[in-house]
């Protein structure tokens, strides 16, 4: 199962990177979103999958899945959410101000 999930993470990374290389600001934000999904999946996979019960302590259960990667991912999800929403508003503002969302045109001048 871990190998399949590794491949899936790789696919998500590919898609994310491909979107990052696009000219349109909106697509770049899509790319960061997919990249963070891929990263989260990767962290979870690296902590081994399906080795016991959910990490909520109950009488009579000895084997739980690793809780640490889950805690890390939870932190990461919130942070990437913050960043994605910030980027989204930034993209919206950039588009409004510059009348363009094409990154090839948003280069700035030589003296910036």
């Amino acid at each position, binding site marked *: *199962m*871990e*190998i*399949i999930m*590794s491949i*899936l*993470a*790789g*696919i*998500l*990374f*590919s*898609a994310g*990177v*491909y*979107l*990052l*290389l*696009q*000219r*349109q600001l*909106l697509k770049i934000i*899509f790319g960061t*979103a*997919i990249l963070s*999904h891929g990263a*989260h*999946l990767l962290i*979870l*996979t*690296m902590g081994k999958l*399906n080795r016991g019960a*959910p*990490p*909520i*302590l109950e009488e009579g259960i000895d084997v*739980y899945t*690793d*809780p*640490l990667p*889950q*805690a890390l*991912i*939870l*932190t990461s*999800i919130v*942070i990437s*959410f*913050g*960043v994605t*929403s910030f980027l*989204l*508003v930034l*993209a*919206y*503002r950039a588009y*409004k101000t510059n009348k363009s969302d094409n990154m*090839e045109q948003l*280069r*700035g001048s030589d003296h910036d």
Partner: protein
Amino acid sequence: MLQYAVLAPFITALFVPFFFRYIRAIHTGWLILPIPFGIFAYFLSQITTISEGANVHSLVQWVPSLGMDFSFYLDGLSLLFSLLISGIGTLVVLYSIFYLNKNEKLHNFYVFLFIFMGAMLGVVLSDNVYALYLFWELTSLSSFLLIGYWYERQASRYGALKSMIITVLGGLAMLGGLILLTIVTETTSIREMIAASDSVLESPYFTGILLLILLGAFTKSAQFPFHIWLPDAMEAPTPVSAFLHSATMVKAGIYLTARLFLLFGGTDIFFVLVTGFGLLTLCWGSYMAVRQTDLKAILAFSTISQLGMIMTMLGFGTKEAVFAAVFHIFNHATFKGSLFMVAGIVDHETGTRDIRKLGGLMTLMPISATLAFFGAFSMAGFPLPIFNGFLSKEMFFQTSLDLDTTSPLVASLAPFVPAIAVLGSIFTFVYSMYFFFHTFTGKTRGELKVKPHEAPIGMLISPIVLVMFVVVIGLLPNLINGPILTPATAAIFGEIPSKHIVFWHGFKLPLYMSLIVVALGVILYLTRAKWQAVYNWIPGVLSANKAYDSIYNMKFRIAEKTTRTYMTGSIRHYVLYILIFIIGAVGVTLFVTDGFVIETGDLAPISWPEVAVGLVMAVAAFATIMMKNRIAAILVLGVVGYGLSLLFVFFRAPDLALTQLIVETVTVALFLLCFYHLPKLDTGKTTPGAKTVNIIISASVGVLVTLIAIASHSSKSFETIAHYFIKESHHLGGGNNVVNVILVDMRGLDTLFEITVLGIAALGIYAMIRLRDKEEID
């Protein structure tokens, strides 16, 4: 006591601006004139000590742990240079009092000049190589400031920059050589290095050390091809040219070569480099001097040529040659200093230095003409024993005939050396005559701005003193032999020469060589107009100045071109650089270390619902790329997120599933909220080439991530620490939900700052929206 001699000019420099500001009635120069004179008197008082073979040493600690100390050491060589620096320094300050009037920026001038004087004394007195380097660079810096003294002139700035670049280039090379020397000899003291000279000769770095240090010496002493900064340094005020660019600073390289002579002297490579470049400089400098039309430019090329001659003699490496070099160092300082001052007087009293406009000044300026006569004829080495230049030139010829031919290489080159020496001297004779006769005899050519008249007596004192030395030493050479020259030679060569300067040595070969020089020189001078065209061929387009300028400009062009190629301003390119680097670094490491392993023993069983969800996510991710419609793209992106939360459910992470679900919903909602304002998705076409690159790069990243993930999963080196959290969650944290206990209890700091991130993002979004409102209202 020595350290105060070095310190005194620096301290004086501190007070100069106050003198200039508050004592306006008296020329600032008068107030500080006693300082160099006092230093000169101090060094004079040391002559007896030094000539008896003793030496003076004083130490001021600086950074002892790194072996850096201001360790000053006075022996014959440093005494000669100290006397020149302080003596000519005194004369130059005196001269400058009459040369610069009180409306000039005197506070700048004397500060720079005194920094230079202190630095130069530091160079010649330092025994510690790091202190030597410090003072060395201070001379470069103060020379830069002095050349650029009239900074409103473009030519001054150009000259200052050029000299700075070239001398600092050499200075840095020298620092490299000195550091290598300290590593090889394990000491920072020059005297101890000389004591350990065997270890230097045997060291594998010997050639490197020699090349680096000679590069420093050659750039400072204006040896070919680094001589080009010196003619441009003539933009400095004339007292500066007389002091720095003839008598003292340009001899720093000579000093360094002489000081380290005991380390390098006698080896073939030293002979070839120092004599070779010296002779080349001698010939080239004197050849080029004839071409110049500016009085100071003639003198600049003459200085280059004479420095080449001194270098040559050091390169010869015999006892007599070193003695002759020391003698000529002294002689050159006297006659060249006086000639520069005369050139300054001519400039001052006629308003021009252009030799094509000058002529017939002999009757108008008899004293200056007399001074120039002695200076120029001494410079030419005219065979009359009233000129000190003649005596040292004879010695030069004599030593070129008596090379130490024990080494086969030197023996094979030795026959050519006297011929080249004569060739260089012929041109020396030509430009000396040109300098004197064209300025002071004949008729005035062209209109002069100022009506020429003799200079004030104050301005003439300094050159008169120097010319007195020319004549007195010409007549009584042994006057300075015992007290100054012999100890200096002993300091360079290591043993004491018993040299008596022969006043008139009879009809020997060197005299015939001098006569050849005079005969051919006269012919060449008289037929000057006929062969001037030669300069169109050599140097023609091969001038070192043109090379310097084109290298200098090319450097900027290449730098700009390089930067423009990769700094395109396109974010796509920058992302590509980053990704290609990551792929390269990680991929190569993975390949080289044979890092890929696959271990199938410890895998969870495959369950099909999860595979199906994964498949849907993969398809959705690709669909996000393909979508041309905004709303469809947003929704498909949502599918990836929801798929992920479903996977979290399957993989027993309830909190993650919850959070992911909510976050994905809010993100999609946010996208949809902005939907109306968002731009259309299909703007412009990507070129097929760029598209291929994108596909290759993104596919490689994906493959690399997969490979690393599998490899690292297959090679677990130690157990997870999860047991601790599970065991202690209830006991220490008082909760059963282990993930939550980790988040708020065991690793609560993470959560604190994650909250902060969210807060900052919220504030940022608010600010962006509010700012827009304000702008639009305004």
